């Protein structure tokens, strides 16, 4: 069934890009290498080579000298920092618990600004996944939470149907008001909970990740968040289980 894209949630390093971007392209490519030798009857032989994922986005330029978290600041850091960007994408609009969450750890390869007289100033971002030492930098999981939090909030329970092994998770605190403590819990009965991941205090306009390939994750999962110091925080938690790296 065809789906019309009217809303999407795009988060990067704790910054909500949803209001600035108008297109996102996700592509995966794999090299096919020609291994045909002279010893052939004419049919070509191919070998599978390397593969990569690329995310590119186009949006509206934004710069504010007093705003440390502008789009320009976020994208410009590509020229001075080589650290991975935690990129989380909710393609199903206003993200709800259980909906698809795309997570990718990106090395930014391009940031372009296009200025044309009497036109909107546009920006382009391109990032590629790069294999890490212990994990693949891409996973497609679900959202465990995406909401503005004041005080302590226990997220909605997600029933995975069975336990699984390993996980990959992203957390974004996209509100500039304050810090929030974030945990992901799991349970065998959906009633009594044990902490699975403790992200500690996630700074405002900050992001964290957690990767594990060996721990058993019980059937029921949820996020629990506490906004610190009487402030509010907009916290989004993306989670992939059955993760083997």
């Amino acid at each position, binding site marked *: 069934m065809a789906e019309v894209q009217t809303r999407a949630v795009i988060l990067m390093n704790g910054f909500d890009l949803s209001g600035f971007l108008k297109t996102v392209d996700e592509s995966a490519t794999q090299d096919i290498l020609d291994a045909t030798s002279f010893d052939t009857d004419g049919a070509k032989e191919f070998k599978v080579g390397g593969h990569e994922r690329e995310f590119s986005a186009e949006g509206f330029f934004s710069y504010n000298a007093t705003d440390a978290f502008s789009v320009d600041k976020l994208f410009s850091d590509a020229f001075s920092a080589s650290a991975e960007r935690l990129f989380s994408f909710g393609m199903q609009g206003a993200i709800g618990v259980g909906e698809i969450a795309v997570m990718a750890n990106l090395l930014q390869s391009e940031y372009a600004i296009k200025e044309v007289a009497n036109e909107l100033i546009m920006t382009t971002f391109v990032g590629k996944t790069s294999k890490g030492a212990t994990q693949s930098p891409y996973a497609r999981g679900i959202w465990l939470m995406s909401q503005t939090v004041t005080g302590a909030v*226990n997220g909605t329970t997600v029933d995975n149907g069975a336990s699984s092994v390993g996980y990959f998770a992203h957390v974004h605190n996209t509100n500039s008001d304050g810090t929030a403590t974030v*945990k992901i*819990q*799991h349970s065998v009965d959906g*009633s*009594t909970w*044990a902490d699975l991941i403790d992200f500690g205090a996630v700074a405002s306009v900050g992001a964290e990740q957690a990767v594990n390939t060996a721990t058993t994750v019980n059937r029921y999962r949820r996020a*629990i968040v506490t906004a610190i110091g009487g402030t509010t925080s907009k916290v989004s938690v993306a989670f992939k289980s059955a993760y083997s790296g």
Partner: protein
Amino acid sequence: MAKTKQKLIFTCGGNLADGTRFEKGDIVPADVSEKELKVLREMGAIRESE
């Protein structure tokens, strides 16, 4: 030295069914039901301590 009575302690943080928060190293409250203790054992969230 006489052996002290064994206690149950939590091996990680979490929340009991009534919402009570516990942290790693806390002593399991005496009023936790056998049913919930069974769940906590299954999750590896408690262990015995001297």
